[in-house]
């Protein structure tokens, strides 16, 4: 789960990480009010959406006076902010974060990340802050410093010193940075964060370290034991159909094609999307109805898929494992009748009692195309749509 910059900063501040003073506004008037209370000449108005690259897209404005804060907030609130991470349609900005301007002498990069290969947390730092860190890693790998934590243990001071002296900080700044890294590691472990990123981490003209941005990814599997984190979820950041699907217990991701897919199992669901594409059509979604698909889940799956107006055909690909194909076929027929299916449907069943399953599909009043293999299923869907989707 992702959170907004302002939420990340508030959480980091609660662990002792210095962040600029600021406030959240959903109207230009509120933004002005916050700027007045902050009492600083320079303020920054920042769009709060879950995407990087906000500055380049016009979602971050440095303002020299109250009038400029008003103008910036008016421009940003309600805009469809387009960045390299939002897609061409952009994201509607509902809220802005207004904070004190910072006198920036230099910018660093700092992150606590899950290192999958090493099976532990790692901390990365770089003196090349404010830039795309993947690009820095590619162009100037010598400017990336990293250290790995012992599983379940906190970070040692020497590890922080290695990173921070590596970044060229002086002794006083290294002391501040060490405290900051230790706070971030403590937060990551306490709140099940798999990524905590500060980019940029500023060193001010006075030599103070302060987090100018904040990005945190939380482990979805741990939200149950972190209700305070779960409460930070912003439903407006998630596709409506994906929200509905989650509440139904379905694993659904909306895509931009026109072939609705319904599959049991995540890997097979991805492979089905790939096969649909290879056949010349485009998947409208990823949908995993679970390894043990039944009529209830299939009915819910139909409802979600058909709520997407782009869907012109549906492909069901079920590998009947423990559940028998005849039971699954009856489930598909029952669900299709219940929702009065209007778009063409191709069904591919495989597994125990597959012949009986196909007979049930064949004898039903609903117009099915039955496919024997995945390739055949995808080809039939593409054909139904006239070949080129």
């Amino acid at each position, binding site marked *: 789960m992702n959170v907004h910059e302002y939420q990340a900063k508030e959480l980091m501040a609660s662990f002792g990480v210095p962040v600029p003073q600021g406030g959240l506004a959903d109207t230009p008037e509120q933004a002005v009010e916050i700027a007045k209370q902050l009492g600083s000449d320079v303020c920054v108005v920042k769009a709060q959406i879950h995407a990087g690259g906000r500055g380049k897209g016009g979602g971050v404005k440095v303002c020299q006076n109250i009038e400029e804060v008003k103008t910036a907030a008016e421009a940003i609130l309600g805009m469809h902010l387009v960045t390299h991470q939002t897609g061409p349609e952009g994201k509607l900005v509902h809220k802005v974060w207004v904070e004190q301007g910072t006198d920036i002498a230099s910018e660093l990069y700092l992150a606590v990340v899950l290192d999958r290969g090493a099976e532990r947390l790692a901390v990365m730092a770089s003196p090349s802050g404010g830039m795309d860190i993947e690009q820095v890693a590619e162009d100037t790998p010598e400017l990336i410093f990293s250290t790995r934590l012992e599983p379940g243990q906190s970070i040692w001071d020497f590890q922080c010193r290695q990173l921070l002296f590596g970044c060229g900080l002086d002794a006083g700044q290294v002391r501040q940075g060490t405290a900051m890294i230790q706070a971030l590691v403590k937060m990551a472990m306490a709140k099940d964060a798999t990524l905590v990123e500060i980019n940029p981490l500023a060193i001010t003209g006075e030599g103070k370290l302060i987090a100018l941005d904040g990005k945190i990814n939380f482990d979805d599997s741990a939200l149950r034991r972190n209700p305070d984190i779960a409460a930070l979820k912003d439903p407006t950041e998630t596709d409506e159909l994906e929200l509905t699907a989650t509440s139904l217990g379905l694993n659904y991701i909306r895509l931009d094609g026109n072939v609705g897919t319904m599959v049991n199992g995540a890997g097979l669901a*991805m492979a089905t999307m790939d096969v649909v594409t290879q056949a010349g059509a485009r998947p409208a979604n*990823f949908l995993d109805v679970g390894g043990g698909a039944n009529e209830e889940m299939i009915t819910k799956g139909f409802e979600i898929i058909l709520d997407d107006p782009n869907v012109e055909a549906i492909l069901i690909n079920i590998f009947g494992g423990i559940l028998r194909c005849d039971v699954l076929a009856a489930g598909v027929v029952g669900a299709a009748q219940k929702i009065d299916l209007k778009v063409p449907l191709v069904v591919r069943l495989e597994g125990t009692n597959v012949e009986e399953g196909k007979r049930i599909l064949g004898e039903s009043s609903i117009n099915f195309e039955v496919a024997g293999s995945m390739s055949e299923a995808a080809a039939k869907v593409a054909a139904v749509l006239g070949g080129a989707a």
Partner: protein
Amino acid sequence: MSILVDKNSRVVVQGLTGKEGMFHAEQMIAYGTNVVAGVTPGKGGQTALGVPVFNTMAQAVKETGANVSVLFVPAAFAADSACEASEAGVELAVVISEHIPVMDMIRAKAFLNARGTKMIGPNCPGIITPGECKIGIQPGYIHKPGTVGIVSRSGTLTYEVVHQISEAGLGQSTCIGIGGDPIIGLNFTQLLELFRDDPGTEAVCLIGEIGGDAEEKAAAVVAAGYPKPVFGFVAGLTAPPGKRMGHAGAIISGSKGRAQDKLAAMEQAGINVVKALGEFGATVAAKLK
């Protein structure tokens, strides 16, 4: 021949008396798996499916000589149970449970590593040596004894490949679902090593997906010289970046973990890459016959 498990494996089911545990343990026993014990804290002294239930793994291992554990334990307690299995001295813990917090798994994996316990999973279908023993939730009937080793990050996608290989007239030595989480037990690389040394395995299939770099590491092992043909597939060519595709570990982060890069690494290493999933069985059969 096989790797890791066979007809002599003595299996203890952690979480036996729960709904999932009972259902799948019954199927495992029906397949011929030698299930010797169950563990559910607080239900020690009972009997379920004809096997004794113990309060602790230590008791279960001491009384029954169990050497493999399979976990049907709720996610919140699964990492703890895996550590208990390790401390009790089993050689292999097969963790079926899904949605285990990754911070728990970091600690549990280090605990198991320190004691030399192997793990399969979590969030996986388990391991099966066809005709000998099934430890997990796989549909047993699609498997046939044979000489193709299969390793996969996915569940039903594995069944699809197993089924195709059986339909093509071949069979499997051992099939392992290694799990869809960011941190897992045995990985492609380690299992390639085990299959290399198994005289009963003639070829190995790697079923990968987006996220992480397990496929690239496996490709490096094969590139360094591997004595048996290897076949590879990667799901998620059309997956959008930044979205978790069902599995917690199946996510493209920035430019990392993309299917096309994994396929390229596999191809370069000399792995027989299967692009159309529907042709997997036929491709393997054509090479081995």
